[in-house]
């Protein structure tokens, strides 16, 4: 690049704009964190702020001591993320491998069967009625695991393409000639050689489970449902209750409002829910960028 005046102006402008972008991206998370370590009365007087007047770790002490519901929600999120991701990957890979074989009988039909689910969709009403009334998954752990998140047609297609283009056919054929069964081939050739796509798509499945709150919103109700709340559902309930109590204050809900987790605790719980993503961020970013080059993040 030539070191002309115009190029220097361009570089400077780009740096200024992008530094602003960095601030706009990061400061909101910092606001949540700073609010979570602000003393309660200071929050009520000065509001949520990046520069708290008085610090307090009360919110985190509260979570550590009385936060059994929060810990439970955290545990449920961890459980559905691990189990959901593993089952998702297994289903995806088991469907993608046969589809990647050029000579699979009925290949056109099966591909269309998968693709059509991306084009046409029954939507919430029949899906909800089926899961709630036919399969009775309401207020069970399956409500968080099964609807929508267990298999993505897009991921099946991406994995199929990866298997087809990155795993040498000759290798599979040689194993077949040696008399290896298909399951043997799947676990000893496809899975090890498909590791890059499995890790990438696995991370997206995990992110999907970790961040999902709609399944809980639809299928978990009442106190029985609350026992199964994921951390996202717990946060959602908390903020809904705040709204509810704010409206009820005029009709004597003040006493109840006093029992609510305080202003700082809300933000502390939100921050606790962010931690895994913040900690895993460099790892997630690496695979996200890899995913783009694999065409893996099409949607």
């Amino acid at each position, binding site marked *: *690049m030539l070191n*002309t005046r115009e*190029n220097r102006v*361009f570089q400077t402008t780009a*740096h200024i*704009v*992008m530094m602003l*972008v*960095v601030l706009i*991206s990061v400061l*909101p*998370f910092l*606001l*949540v964190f700073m609010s979570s370590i602000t003393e309660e009365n200071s929050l*009520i007087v000065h*509001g*949520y*702020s990046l520069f708290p007047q008085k610090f307090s770790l009360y919110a985190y002490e509260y979570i550590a001591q009385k936060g059994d519901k929060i810990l439970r929600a955290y545990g449920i999120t961890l459980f559905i993320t691990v189990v959901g991701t593993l089952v998702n990957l297994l*289903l995806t890979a*088991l*469907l993608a491998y*046969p*589809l990647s074989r050029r000579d*699979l009988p009925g290949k056109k039909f099966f591909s269309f069967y998968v*693709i059509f689910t991306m084009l*046409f969709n*029954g*939507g919430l*009403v*029949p899906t*909800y*009625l*089926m899961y709630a009334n036919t399969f009775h998954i309401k207020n069970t752990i399956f409500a968080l695991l*099964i609807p929508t998140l*267990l*298999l993505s047609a897009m991921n099946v297609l991406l994995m199929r393409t990866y298997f087809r283009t990155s795993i040498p056919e000759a290798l599979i054929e040689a194993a077949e000639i040696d008399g290896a*069964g298909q*399951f043997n081939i*799947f676990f000893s050739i496809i899975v090890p050689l498909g590791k890059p796509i499995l890790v990438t798509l696995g991370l997206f499945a995990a*992110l999907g489970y970790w*961040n999902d*709150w*709609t399944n809980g919103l*639809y299928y978990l109700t009442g106190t029985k449902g609350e026992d199964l709340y994921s951390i*996202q559902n717990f*946060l959602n309930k908390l*903020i*809904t209750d705040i*709204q509810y109590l704010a409206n009820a204050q005029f009709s004597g809900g003040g006493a109840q409002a006093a029992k609510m987790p305080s202003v700082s605790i809300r*933000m502390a719980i939100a921050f606790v*829910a*962010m931690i895994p*993503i913040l900690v895993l*961020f460099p790892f997630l*970013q690496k695979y*996200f*960028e890899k995913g783009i*080059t694999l065409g893996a*993040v*099409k949607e």
Partner: protein
Amino acid sequence: MKVRKWAPMFIMMAPGLIYLFINNYIPMAGLVIAFKKMDFRKGIWGSDWVGFDNFKYLFTTPDAFVITRNTILYNLAFIIVNIVVGIIFAIFISEMVNKHMKQLYQSAVLLPFLMSMVIVSYIVYAILSPETGLMNKTVLPMAGKDPVSWYSETKYWPYILIIVNTWKGVGYGCLIYLASIIGIDRSLYEAADIDGAGKWVQIRTITLPMLLPSVITLTLLNVGRIFFSDFSLFYQVPQNSGILYSVTNTIDTYVYRALLQLGDTGMASAAGFYQSVIGFLLIIGCNWLVRKLDRDSALF
């Protein structure tokens, strides 16, 4: 030999195919509920047919227009803003000489994309909360302005939703554009340097034209989904505030509220059917166009 080879393959595919049958195909058939009066004792299949009654009710309400308008206009705004902002950021990042800064900027645009909408709604709440928010307690007093009750003033929400959507979502498009820019043949820029072309000329005559195919493809795929909205954004971020429905209600939030908060299966199923069918036609139409322009990017 043949059977021994393919039988295990069909067994492998079976769990995935069965899942898609249950999760996707049964609900497609279940769309017929839009033409029935749902009776929970009789179930979807046994309920009585009522022809187009549910649709007649739906389209006599003002909601039908509002949710269609909101869904389409917000999507159009999101598509345009995300393209413009995404491309600007991608060009800036691609021109960075310093590797560490480049990495920092890429991380910054991606970070919000990985967070859940519930977390985003907490961030928005920390900023906009009427009693303790950053805006009402710090920013507005500093500017000498009166506090605003954000969650009950409709006029701000089109901007808030567009800003939140851009803040959370722009990183995804940006990194795709960045990958396309990195793929552009460097010798084009070297030749332009030799000819004495400045940065702006290079962007206008090399970068933008080379980006066009991926912009068109991504846009058409998004236009195909213009009848579907991000439920979490429109439900969670405005905190389901009833006063704001005229500017926050989309087809997806309408269907959810009609089905699970009001128990009006008829209205919900009619709106859902309307979304599924028009959405299907749009996806097919846009995909047909994508296939004409760039075969590899088409879904089928």
